[in-house]
């Protein structure tokens, strides 16, 4: 490796405002937007008691109020029907119950809260029906004290704890990190255009120098990886420290994954540029669009996309570097074991090496009699 080339590649990367923007500031700005937009998004998922009113104008059936308060599902208030109507139209309560002609739930619109109230009332009506029917069929049961033994509140379910880390929003940030790692492809593209003498004047100059081509190439690649890795670290620090997004405490694993991501990304760009014969600006545009598509498929814009791809076309999920990075981070966050993480890491390394081999095969022994 040539330290000289390494140093100057790094310098030129830092001084290039365009690359600085795309590789560092753009992801940070995007992360800020995510944060602002999604801050409240997940908070509505937690269970809140349903606010419901019982109208005092009518006689309520026996035991209903007791069952309701025992269920721990409702916050009950007692209002006259007039007041309840008013509160409901201001959407302060989910609905109110009246008993004018059978139990009736009055609501404003359909929704989950309303459904819970409805199901609960249904339940009450049904339990009454069941009891009447049982007694109808075997009237002698009343004497045996059967009614005291029945319990309609028994629970038949047992929760298997899944994980406390269930925040879907983090996947957006993971996909963003993946995108940032892979943006190194734009720089990779540039590398391969300054190493092929028939593409730019700079490349011609570099080729004249007595440095071995592979050596020069590798130095540039490592400079890019380093630069990109630093911006990923900055981004990660920003997301975890300033935006307070939980990344878990497996920092080293995350770091390794991102480093490999930068490696694969850089070589992807280099390979792309070697294989195509467009102008370098066109290539850079194509590469960045390509990365956006990969990121999209790994859930950057619509987070469910990642799941859909994974279920429907798992093949794409396994060769998409953006998804490998996102999935690796996700596995670290959600799973206790490391199997899935290592699977993703290995695939990512393999992809990177494949890109590297293709690039060197194309680049090696190119001679230019005249340019």
């Amino acid at each position, binding site marked *: 490796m040539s330290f000289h080339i390494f140093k100057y590649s790094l310098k030129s990367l830092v001084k290039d405002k365009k690359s600085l923007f795309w590789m560092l500031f753009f992801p940070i700005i995007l992360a800020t937007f995510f944060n602002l*937009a999604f801050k409240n998004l997940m908070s509505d998922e937690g269970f809140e008691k349903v606010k419901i009113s019982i109208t005092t104008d009518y006689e309520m059936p026996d035991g209903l109020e007791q069952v309701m308060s025992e269920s721990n599902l409702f916050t009950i208030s007692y209002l006259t029907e007039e007041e309840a109507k008013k509160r409901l139209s201001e959407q302060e309560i989910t609905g109110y119950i009246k008993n004018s002609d059978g139990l009736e739930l*009055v609501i404003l619109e359909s929704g989950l809260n309303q459904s819970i109230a*409805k199901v609960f009332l*249904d339940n009450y009506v049904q339990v009454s029906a069941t009891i009447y029917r049982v007694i109808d069929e075997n009237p002698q049961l009343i004497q045996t004290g059967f009614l005291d033994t*029945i319990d309609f509140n028994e629970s038949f379910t047992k929760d298997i704890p899944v994980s406390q880390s269930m925040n879907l929003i983090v996947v957006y940030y993971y996909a963003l990190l993946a995108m940032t790692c892979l943006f190194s492809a734009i720089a990779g593209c540039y590398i391969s255009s300054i190493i092929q003498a028939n593409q730019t004047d700079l490349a011609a100059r570099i080729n004249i120098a007595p440095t071995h081509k592979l050596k020069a190439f590798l130095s540039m690649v490592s400079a890019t990886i380093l630069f990109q890795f630093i911006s990923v670290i900055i981004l990660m620090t920003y997301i975890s420290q300033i935006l307070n997004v939980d990344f878990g405490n497996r920092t080293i694993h995350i770091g390794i994954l991102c480093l490999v991501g930068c490696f694969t990304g850089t070589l992807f760009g280099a390979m792309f540029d070697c294989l195509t014969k467009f102008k370098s600006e066109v290539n850079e545009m194509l590469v960045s669009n390509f990365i956006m598509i990969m990121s999209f498929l790994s859930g950057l814009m619509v987070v469910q996309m990642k799941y859909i791809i994974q279920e429907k076309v798992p093949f794409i999920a396994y060769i998409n570097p953006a998804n490998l990075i996102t999935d690796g981070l996700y596995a670290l966050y959600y*799973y206790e074991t490391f199997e899935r993480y290592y699977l993703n890491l290995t695939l990512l390394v393999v992809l990177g090496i494949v890109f590297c081999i293709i690039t060197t095969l194309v680049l090696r022994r190119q001679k230019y009699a005249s340019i």
Partner: protein
Amino acid sequence: MQVFKVFYKIVPRKFLGVFIIYILIFVGLMSLFTKSGMTQGEDAFELSAVKISVINKDNSTLANGLEAYINDISKPVKIKTDEESIRDALFFRETEFIVIIPEGFQNNFTTLDAKNIQTMSVPDSMSREYAKTIIDRYLNTAKVYISANPDLSIESINEKVLNDISSEANVSFLDGNVTNDMSNFNTYFNFLSYILIAILISMVGRIMLIFNDKEIKMRNYSAPISSKSYNYQLIFSNLLIAFIIWFIFIIITFVINGPIFNQSSFLFIINSFILTLLSLSIAFLVSTFATKKSIDPIGNCLSLGLAFLGGSFVPQALLSEQLKTIGIFNPIFWYVKVNDTIGNLAVNTQATLEPIIYGILVQLAFAFAFIAISLVIIKQKRQSFE
């Protein structure tokens, strides 16, 4: 008409590709969104369907009865049954509640330890409580029948339970609240704000950059054409291209969402037209100070930023309080607000139209402000130029 002609020579040569890419992305995303959105009925109560996946390992009458009941009342989701798939499905909210009915469930049902249905869910969620209620209801009723009459066959118990469960409490809606289902339109038009700004900045903004190029400008000013006519032609060309783009998106609206023509859709279209003017003014402003290199980053940040902070992607109701306060300074916020008002429009009276008109006026004011600022910048630049 020379300027006009040049303008429309540049467009297909340089920007058709960009335009098509944007349209494709937009149409793809929109058809994804609208398909996933649930449609609600007119005035009938619909139970919210929680996405539940039942993994039935028992296959007995009771277990099948329970499964059929759950599938009937919820939105059944089929998932793969290996551990990892289950957990992934839960994390990505593909399903919200997983019920695992173990083997031998029916045989052990009457014994004391009946609490053996395993469930997996997002912790502390609303849908979890709801799904549990459904399961317990079915099984409790079944249990009562069994203990009342142990000789009954499971089939007849199942039948009785279903019969009991079918009796329901009445539900009525508070009067005068017939909401028309425009949620698809609402999502579509909210999302449109992002695409329109992005497209107009990357197209109009760039074309203006070409015209603003110092040497081209010098050449143009030396032509025997009055600067008044020059500017009018430019303005006209800009408006025309914005109008064409807007018109294409309106056609796509009806292609994706189906031809619904009523007052709401009409209002949506008007509002989006105002947005087009607004986006055009933003693009115009950007073109006054951006350079060829910086217009991409600026366009990206502006379109994403305004859209994110204005609630185009995430419903405004879920935005934080601070953001809502800052939103007053964000024209897209007003646009989305008007859209949401239109989407929730119940009865069309003067009173309900008022906030819509107000919101539209605010957007227009923003548009004028942007144009005014850009005119000032242009004038200053020209003075320093001369």
